[in-house]
């Protein structure tokens, strides 16, 4: 609890940071996941292992990287390996407990699209593509997703399966021979979602402070399910907010000085 005001971006990052644990080995996507992972490291999980796909293992950046391969990540890492080794030994080898992803489009089963809007061969918008995500989604022990809600990105049907979440739900992952858990948490600017045990549809389990069910529904392109025992996400603490803001400020200064 805090007397400081906070915005929904801050709430999202802090809520996402809380779901990580000290002994997690986390494969970090750039952007919102990176902020959340580093806030976790700077608050309750000082020994968390952060891995970026550029090959940096156990990195402890003082400022958030702008790219996945900033020098800061290497300077503060335990070790830096080649990219083939990163994908073979560390990701495919099953060493990563949590893959932390974001998305351009997400559906209710945690399937992710960062490839195209529209048809693949004649796209309306050609997005960057999957990068590491297709194998992050299948090789990490579980997947957390963090992104802001909007009708444009929370869609009933994604245009392309960049990364497989729970597919069409149920035991679809197992039927494809995927042995990892897939998306187990979704942290947005409005709420925390978990997949329904049976259907695997993402269900709102906790609303952030002062957020209504309507706000959640109005920013999502499908009929939202809410948990029976819907909780309220604890507000950011003063410490969480200070850590996040100082991190952002250090980052701003570092990246504009040059």
């Amino acid at each position, binding site marked *: 609890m805090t007397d400081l005001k906070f915005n929904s971006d801050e709430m999202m990052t802090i809520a996402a940071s809380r779901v990580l644990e000290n002994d997690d080995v986390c494969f970090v996507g*750039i952007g919102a996941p990176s902020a959340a992972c580093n806030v976790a490291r700077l608050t309750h999980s000082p020994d968390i292992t952060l891995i970026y*796909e*550029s*090959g*940096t293992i156990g990195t402890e950046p003082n400022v958030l*990287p*702008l*790219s*996945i*391969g*900033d*020098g800061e*990540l*290497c300077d503060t890492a335990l070790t*830096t390996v*080649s*990219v*083939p080794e*990163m*994908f*073979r030994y560390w*990701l*495919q080898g099953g060493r990563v407990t949590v893959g932390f992803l974001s998305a351009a489009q997400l559906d209710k089963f945690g399937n992710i699209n960062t*490839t195209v809007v529209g048809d*693949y*061969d004649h*796209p*309306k*918008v*050609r*997005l*960057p*593509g*999957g*990068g*590491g*995500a*297709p*194998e992050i*989604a*299948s*090789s990490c022990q579980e997947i957390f997703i963090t992104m802001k809600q909007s009708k444009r990105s929370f869609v009933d049907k994604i245009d*392309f*399966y*960049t*990364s*497989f979440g729970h*597919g069409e739900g149920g035991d*679809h*992952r197992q039927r*494809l*021979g*995927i042995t990892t858990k897939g998306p187990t948490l979704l942290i947005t600017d409005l709420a925390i979602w978990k997949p329904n045990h049976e259907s695997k549809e993402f269900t709102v389990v906790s609303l952030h402070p002062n957020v209504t069910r309507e706000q959640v529904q109005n920013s999502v392109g499908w009929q939202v399910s809410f948990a029976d025992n819907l909780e309220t996400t604890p507000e950011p603490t003063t410490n969480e907010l200070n850590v996040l803001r100082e991190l952002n400020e250090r980052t701003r200064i570092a*990246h*504009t000085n*040059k």
Partner: protein
Amino acid sequence: MTIFTNLSKAVSENLNDNDTVAFEGFTHLIPHAAAHEAIRQQFKNLTLIRMTPDVVYDQMIGMGMAKKLVFSYAGNPGVGLLRRMRDAVENNWPHSIEIEEHSHAAMANAYEAGASGLPCAVFRGYLGAGLPAVNPKIKSITCPFTGEKLAAVPAHKPDVSFIHAQKADKKGNVLLEGIIGVQKEAVLAAKRAVVTVEEVVDSLDTHSNACILPHWTISAIAIVPGGAHPSYAHGYYDRDNSAYLEWDKIAADRDLFTSWMKENVLDAKPEDFAARITHLRNI
């Protein structure tokens, strides 16, 4: 040693129209100077391979040099989309390009297989993903012991790979350190390899297990201080983040792009890179 030459010759003697070429670098050590030299020499019909095509491939695509792009993540790192590439894919400007799209795991394994002299890479990948349906180069192979179906992609075997590295010794042995990406694999997978370096030193004087490419794996070395700019060279200079942000604006407009390329690439020289990193030096 004859391996040392100037960038103009290094490029003209090792790159040809219609080649399959990789300019590799994973955010760090991107061979911008070599790519700009290739742009100045106006090669055509290139198949461009890279895990993370970013500004330089946006530039080469925008200049109409690319027939095909083989890649896994086409973005301006930390900024957004590649606007020249989008214009080619969405609007066929300046002409259409073919796309062969993979995941990072597939691309990294394909380089590794190329360096290993294998015809294909085998890995656990693409499970449930959409790319195998749109990329016929993604096939599968069955483990003869467990019956598990694994992904297979062809090995990357570029005609020529270009990389930038921190330094070479006088024999032409090259040291890369920091985020080393797939550059060693890209060099060993290629028929020919060109390296630009920040400097030449008497001795590499490094750790016994450092990432070193022996001189006999390299076709030509050109000394180009600052040659990675706006990417960075760990231990020499920092990433020019503002240049990446600026590129987003330049690439948004065809005319602005064309005039920027004329001023900063076509009418520029390899020696211009040194001045671009003066304010970014960190030693």
